[in-house]
């Protein structure tokens, strides 16, 4: 192991292995060396199986230094022999280290302190308190560099000094450092909590403010419109249903324009549509019955293009129902019939299967009304009506 083998011993080994004379093996090794030299000079490459590849490389001229005198000299262009062992030989030599594989090095552990991490967190969040704290930390190094100069609020500076002490090796009192980080954290956390609370409050107000506002406005409108007609109402805070009952019962006209007008007069409530709402849901909410949605559609047909699709942000009128779903009054019947008729028209335009059903319902509510609208009803659906008893 790890020894220098003489040429004599190499020859002995070869002859011992093959059972040949040492002369022959010596001759062979010498001839082999001569052939390798020949081959290098001829081709520049000699490949020997089991050993490796000898290669000649051209090295360009370069400037260097004489190692003895230290003078700058130019090294002339020359050729150099390189030997690369065969893969088999490399593996054979490295058998004892074959199990070792290159490993990825773990990244160096971060030396940043907790305060730094908290500062980074504050930098990311747009909080007033956090920004203040950050500004203070940035100011402090300048102050400590100034050393002697007294500032207007020295206590505050000392408070925030420790945050940057970790970053720069600045001479600041060590006793103060230990006490200050919790103070700073608590201070900035207070700001954080305060802003979160304010944001929540704003969201809460936004959720509740708009509908109320619209409702009050609608109330005022209805009051102002009703006041000259009814002339009796004095209290504004009355229940809306009561208002509807107090309202003069004007029988709806057969034409759609005056009909809408009368409905608008009756409207006791309004509703601001939100995401995810539908006419069915609104009807269920206001009348406790989803099947009354054509009422809403009729009252707001100028705003609603497709009864199946409600855009949010619309202020819808909620017409009051005089009776109930089971016992509708005459006015309710007419309104429902008009609503179903409008739904029928909308669905007929879209070739919806439910169109005929709405026509049937409208016919049930007000058979005489259908006759006045006969020209708007599709001829195919006329047969359906004729079958109804």
């Amino acid at each position, binding site marked *: 192991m790890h020894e220098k083998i003489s*040429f004599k011993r190499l020859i002995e080994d070869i002859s011992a292995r093959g059972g040949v004379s040492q002369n022959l093996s010596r001759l062979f090794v010498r001839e082999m060396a001569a052939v390798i030299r020949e081959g290098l000079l*001829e081709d520049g490459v000699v490949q020997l199986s089991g050993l490796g590849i000898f290669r000649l490389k051209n090295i360009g001229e370069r400037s260097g230094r004489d190692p003895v005198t230290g003078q700058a000299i130019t090294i002339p262009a020359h050729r150099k022999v390189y030997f690369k062992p065969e893969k088999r030989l490399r593996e054979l030599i*490295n058998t004892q280290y074959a199990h070792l594989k290159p490993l990825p090095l773990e990244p160096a552990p971060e030396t940043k302190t907790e305060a730094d991490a908290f500062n980074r967190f504050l930098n990311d969040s747009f909080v007033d308190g956090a920004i203040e704290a950050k500004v203070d930390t940035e100011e402090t190094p300048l102050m400590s560099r100034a050393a002697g100069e007294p500032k207007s609020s020295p206590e505050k500076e000392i408070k925030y000094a420790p945050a940057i002490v970790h970053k720069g090796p600045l001479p600041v009192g060590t006793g103060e450092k230990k006490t200050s980080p919790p103070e700073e954290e608590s201070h900035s956390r207070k700001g954080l909590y305060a802003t979160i609370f304010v944001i929540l409050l704003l969201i809460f107000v936004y959720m509740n403010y708009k509908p109320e506002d619209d409702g009050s406005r609608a109330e005022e409108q209805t009051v102002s419109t009703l006041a000259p007609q009814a002339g009796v109402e004095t209290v504004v805070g009355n229940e809306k249903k009561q208002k509807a009952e107090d309202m003069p019962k004007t029988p709806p006209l057969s034409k759609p324009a005056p009909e809408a007008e009368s409905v608008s007069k009756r409207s006791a409530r309004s509703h601001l549509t939100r995401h995810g709402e539908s006419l069915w849901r609104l009807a269920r909410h206001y009348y406790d019955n989803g099947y009354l949605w054509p009422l809403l559609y009729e009252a707001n047909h100028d705003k609603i293009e497709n009864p199946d699709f409600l855009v949010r942000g619309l202020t819808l009128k909620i017409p009051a129902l005089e009776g109930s779903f089971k016992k509708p009054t005459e006015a309710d019947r007419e309104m429902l019939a008009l609503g179903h008729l409008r739904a029928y028209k909308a669905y007929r335009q879209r070739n919806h299967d439910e169109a005929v059903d709405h026509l049937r319902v409208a016919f049930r509510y007000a058979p005489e009304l259908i006759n006045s609208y006969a020209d708007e009803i599709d001829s195919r659906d006329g047969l359906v009506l004729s079958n109804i008893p």
Partner: protein
Amino acid sequence: MNTSEALKRIAGRMQKSIKETKVLYTQCIGVMNDHLVERNHFNIPRLGTFGSVERKERQAYNPHFKKKMLIPRKVSVFFKPSRTLKEEIK
């Protein structure tokens, strides 16, 4: 030049058959490899010195994975050409 051509030339120089030369060649290479595995080094006149040395483990940057890697230790073969070979090549 490859092995078969080298063997042909050696056989011509030694005035032996290629078959005999090949046997000698395999034995010679076997002995050399054995010495290299045992981390010995030996000199062949007018050619150079062969040997094997152990390289220590080191940190290196892998440009493919863009990571620092720990390269384990290994043994590598070296060849140092002799003075006469260097002179001839120049």
